[in-house]
């Protein structure tokens, strides 16, 4: 049984407010055979400068320290890749450090940048991430990814990370999904939604107009997961610049407030001991006493069906910001949909729905920009960029891309990033004739979850319009 002390559950405090001043991202694709990583990183930073009508030189003049997220050194065969990028961005001799937390690398990189500003060490910090997974044959890439599991106890078993993750999906599928056709359909709806949303995003590398049947009939990767249930493997870069108040307003008239919480859990799912469910602000003691009765086999927490790291990250972030109920207090979310089923698990971990009821977030239509059941705006749209399933999963950049996307909604500038014909052309992508704005109208607050593999690291970032805070400083 894991127990927490009061000191461990202390709500994180920042010694000064931190603001997100600007963001940027590159094109994302499966491979860039004729583009170096630094070219993608420069694309992202240049986009961030463009966003605030500055030249890169002007924007760089504000940066005091730089935090780089790049998970898989071994893919690029380049240790200290961060130093390469830092040099190519022309930021030497500023202090810099690399961050690696698997799929959560992007979020963790922002975590470091925010702490640097909150502490007063820097007035302005760059968080920039990238990933390069196209430079080895696919089976060697699978092996390299499997090295993120335990090298002695897991990796030799097939050298395939999907296998170590999918056992969690199986357990959730059977216990909470009850292996029902209707649950299978709900999983597929997530893939249809996110790949469909990606069609409106010129940066996205996996747009598809598909049906539930297409997902259900796609080849099995590891049952119940099929090809179209799974996220992309991408190459690309994204960044965000965080500042103290004074510096933020020197860069832009409209900076956003930003907070972040982080959690962790064992690298091996095997080591997750049974424990009491930590409660979020919108949950009541005793609420889960009958969980095992409703879902036989579902009484072991977090077991194989929940992500404790996500719950703890949300616990810290909600309590830092005053979020009580994410569905009521937030307007848009970007979640780490590595797989359709893990997306559902996350709805529960971060309190969008109670444990056991995650599927309802999709089935109710709340997760859509336009609720398909009512044709009215969805209550809390998720992943309008297409998420990891439709837009990209360039590991070190993913969490930063999600933060950028939430920012675009709150800035009410989503269309400006996703609509221009010139961008579609520059990315050699065809803009769909039915292109539709997915701007979440009136968005003032949003959240992004950055998540590593089987849940070893998770960050929960919250962005708010400074005029619409829930809790005053």
């Amino acid at each position, binding site marked *: 049984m894991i127990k927490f002390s009061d000191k461990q559950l202390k709500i994180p405090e920042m010694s000064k407010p931190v603001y997100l001043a600007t963001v940027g991202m590159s094109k994302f694709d499966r491979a860039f055979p004729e583009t170096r990583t630094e070219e993608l990183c420069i694309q992202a930073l240049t986009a961030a400068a463009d966003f605030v009508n500055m030249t890169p030189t002007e924007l760089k003049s504000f940066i005091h320290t730089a935090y780089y997220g790049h998970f898989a050194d071994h893919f690029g*065969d380049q240790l200290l890749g961060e130093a390469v990028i830092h040099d190519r961005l022309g930021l030497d001799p500023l202090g810099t450090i690399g961050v690696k937390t698997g799929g959560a690398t992007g979020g963790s990189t922002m975590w470091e940048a925010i702490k640097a500003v909150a502490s007063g060490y820097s007035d302005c910090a760059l968080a920039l991430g990238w990933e390069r997974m196209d430079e080895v044959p696919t089976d060697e890439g*699978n092996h390299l990814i499997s090295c993120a599991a335990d090298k002695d106890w897991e990796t030799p078993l*097939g*050298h395939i990370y999907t296998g170590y993750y*999918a056992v969690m999906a199986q357990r959730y599928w059977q216990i909470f999904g009850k292996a029902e056709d209707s649950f299978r359909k709900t999983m597929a709806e997530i893939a249809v939604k996110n790949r469909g949303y990606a069609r409106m995003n010129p940066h996205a590398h996996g747009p598809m107009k598909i049906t539930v049947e297409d997902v259900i009939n796609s080849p*099995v990767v590891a049952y119940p997961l099929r090809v179209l249930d799974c996220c992309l493997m991408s190459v690309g870069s994204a960044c965000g610049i965080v500042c103290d108040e004074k510096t933020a307003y020197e860069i832009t008239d409209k900076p956003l407030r930003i907070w972040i919480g982080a959690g962790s859990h064992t690298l*091996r*799912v095997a080591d997750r001991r049974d424990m009491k469910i930590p409660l979020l602000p919108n949950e009541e003691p005793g609420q889960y006493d009958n969980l095992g009765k409703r879902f036989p086999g579902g009484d072991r927490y977090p077991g194989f069906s929940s992500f404790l790291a996500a719950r703890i990250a949300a616990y810290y972030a909600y309590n830092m910001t005053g979020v009580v109920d994410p569905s009521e207090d937030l307007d848009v979310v970007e979640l780490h949909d590595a797989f359709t089923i893990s997306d559902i698990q996350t709805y529960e971990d971060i309190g969008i729905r109670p444990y056991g009821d995650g599927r309802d977030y999709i089935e109710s239509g709340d997760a859509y920009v336009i609720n398909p059941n009512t044709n009215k705006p969805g209550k809390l749209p998720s992943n309008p960029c297409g998420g990891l399933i439709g837009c990209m999963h360039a590991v070190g950049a993913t969490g930063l891309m999600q933060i950028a996307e939430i920012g675009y909604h709150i800035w009410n500038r989503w269309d400006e990033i996703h609509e221009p014909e010139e961008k579609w052309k520059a990315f050699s992508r065809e803009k769909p004739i039915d292109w539709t704005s997915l701007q979440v109208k009136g968005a003032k607050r949003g959240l992004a979850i950055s998540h590593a593999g089987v849940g070893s690291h998770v960050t929960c970032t919250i962005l708010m319009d400074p005029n619409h805070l829930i809790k005053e400083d």
Partner: protein
Amino acid sequence: MPKTEEEKGFVDIIDGRYKPRGKFHIIEKNQPIFNKDTGKLAGVTNPRDMTYIHSYGGEAPFFEGIGKGKLLATRCDNPKCDSIGSIFEPFRIYCPDCLRKATIVDITEKARNTAKIHSFIITHRSGAFNTLPKPIKFINVEFDEEVVTILMSVLVVGEPEIGKRVVPIFRTKDPTYTIMDLMFVLEGTPESELPEGFTF
């Protein structure tokens, strides 16, 4: 092509230091990568053949044990720790709560009598260097209540199902001294159906 004995690298420990012997890498020339449409150079391949030297440290008894047909785990015996009596499999050298060295215990019989499938997955995919036959049937094995963790392994005989009883088998002939020396089969599987080199 598998390497010949002359092409392999070996390591001993002598006087407390690693002593490599044999061949550890075979140099292969890089190759240019051209864009077939433009005829222009885009990059190069960087072939590399490396061998890592890895210490099991305090987990060595486990990996030696499975090659001898024994499933070793560890137990916290610290009377001042809330986790006293908890058995860990995967084997943990130290209790994660009190950080006192845990006691090595033999749970072979416990595994034979109580192991069952907690979850599973069947996949036809694998990464480079995989030696398991496909499809791979990953299983997570739960034991009795004393064992507070759930071991990942593979099922090599039978079809997996949550709750099904399984028993461990061990590669006692030519062990690899890796986790690949421990696998599971459904309870009731006859010895004749075990993979080459494995025994109950």
